[in-house]
């Protein structure tokens, strides 16, 4: 079913809902979410823990099925798709970055990154080349043959980001990308996301870290499964840097 409203949204949802349990123990993790993401936009979704933002992200990535509502990816309704079709979608059009990195411990960095390409059926050589390219892009070309255990948290997450980019996806979904990182590693990942944003990659980031959210064009607050508020982050501020540092007065 094509998106009737036209427009070139990369990602769009209407009335998205996800419920667990039933009757007395019913939990509405996501309760009626309408979202539109334009191409090249970075959207940050912030909220207290348990507000359902991670659940929302997994729904957007086709890793879980909504109870109600529709999701359109590049104008195509993905809600009625079979598991197989969703898998193909994840392979070709969606990149996912997890809070826990989820790298395979027995594979080297480059083997981890090339995995989605191999799953998509690309030739081993092409997959390897693309993986090396991406590792270079995230600044880890010299660590290509390292196992994840030999990498720091920030480096692991960057490998995970490289993996998410292998298929040149329409949208990259990131779930608390700096959640498990110390501030120095987080800075590296921050820089990477900023670069991706500058390069025009569409990003949807779920986070409770304001610094990651600050790289976005738009910040949406979420609570109890619904969107509360939206803040545009483009445009100037009212204060100068010097004032923020306490130099004046």
């Amino acid at each position: 079913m094509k998106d009737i409203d036209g427009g070139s949204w990369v990602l769009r949802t209407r009335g998205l809902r996800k419920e667990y349990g039933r009757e007395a123990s019913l939990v509405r993790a996501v309760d009626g979410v309408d979202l539109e993401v334009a191409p090249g936009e970075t959207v940050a979704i912030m909220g207290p823990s348990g507000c359902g933002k991670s659940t929302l992200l997994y729904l957007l990535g086709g890793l879980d099925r909504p109870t109600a509502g529709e999701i359109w990816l590049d104008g195509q309704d993905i809600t009625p798709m079979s598991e197989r079709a969703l898998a193909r979608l994840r392979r070709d059009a969606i990149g996912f970055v997890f809070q826990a990195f989820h790298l395979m411990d027995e594979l080297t960095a480059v083997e981890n990154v090339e995995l989605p390409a191999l799953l998509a059926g690309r030739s081993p050589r092409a997959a390897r080349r693309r993986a090396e390219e991406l590792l270079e892009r995230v600044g880890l070309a010299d660590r290509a043959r390292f196992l994840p255990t030999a990498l720091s948290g920030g480096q692991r997450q960057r490998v995970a980001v490289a993996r998410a980019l292998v298929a040149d996806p329409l949208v990259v979904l990131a779930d608390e990308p700096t959640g498990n990182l110390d501030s120095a590693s987080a800075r590296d990942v921050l820089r990477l996301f900023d670069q991706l944003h500058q390069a025009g990659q569409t990003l949807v980031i779920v986070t409770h870290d304001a610094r990651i959210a600050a790289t976005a064009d738009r910040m949406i607050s979420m609570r109890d499964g619904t969107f509360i508020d939206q803040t545009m982050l483009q445009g100037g501020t009212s204060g100068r840097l010097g004032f923020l540092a306490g130099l004046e007065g």
Partner: protein
Amino acid sequence: MQQGAVLAMLAKEPAHGYQLRARLRQALGPVGEGMNDGQIYVTLTRLEKAGLVTAEQEPGPPDRSDRKVYALTSAGQRRVADWLAEVSWPKPDLAEFHLKLIAAAAAGLADPITIIDTQRGDLLRRLRETQRAALAEPDRSPAALLLEGIVLRLQADLRWLEACEQNWTSGKDES
């Protein structure tokens, strides 16, 4: 604040006004860009009047401030030592915002949540700017460190705003 910093920069050796200016600029990076050039000379004059600093005219056209060489007096040196040993930390100024919210709610003039959201948007934009600047600096440079400090403060403030929002939302529900 600036007074102490300027005094301290003279502790090692006397210096010209423009040299002091350059040192400050380097230490502050982009944060110092908004600094008024003339500001430093005003500060130096005040210090001279307070007897903490002496100004010697270098040979050349008289009465041009940038030809003066500034040096610490012994009183100045004592003040530097005191300043370095001071433990006071810049005061967080949250009370005003806090009272703003309470006043708005009490008088029914505005919704506290709206105030919080507006402020939060502003802080986020500031955070964005500061972060951009921080990422542009080389790692571990003095400027980067300062910017990191600002970012972390902003982050802390944003967290407090979140707590405020939760508090005022539930307060609204109850009432």
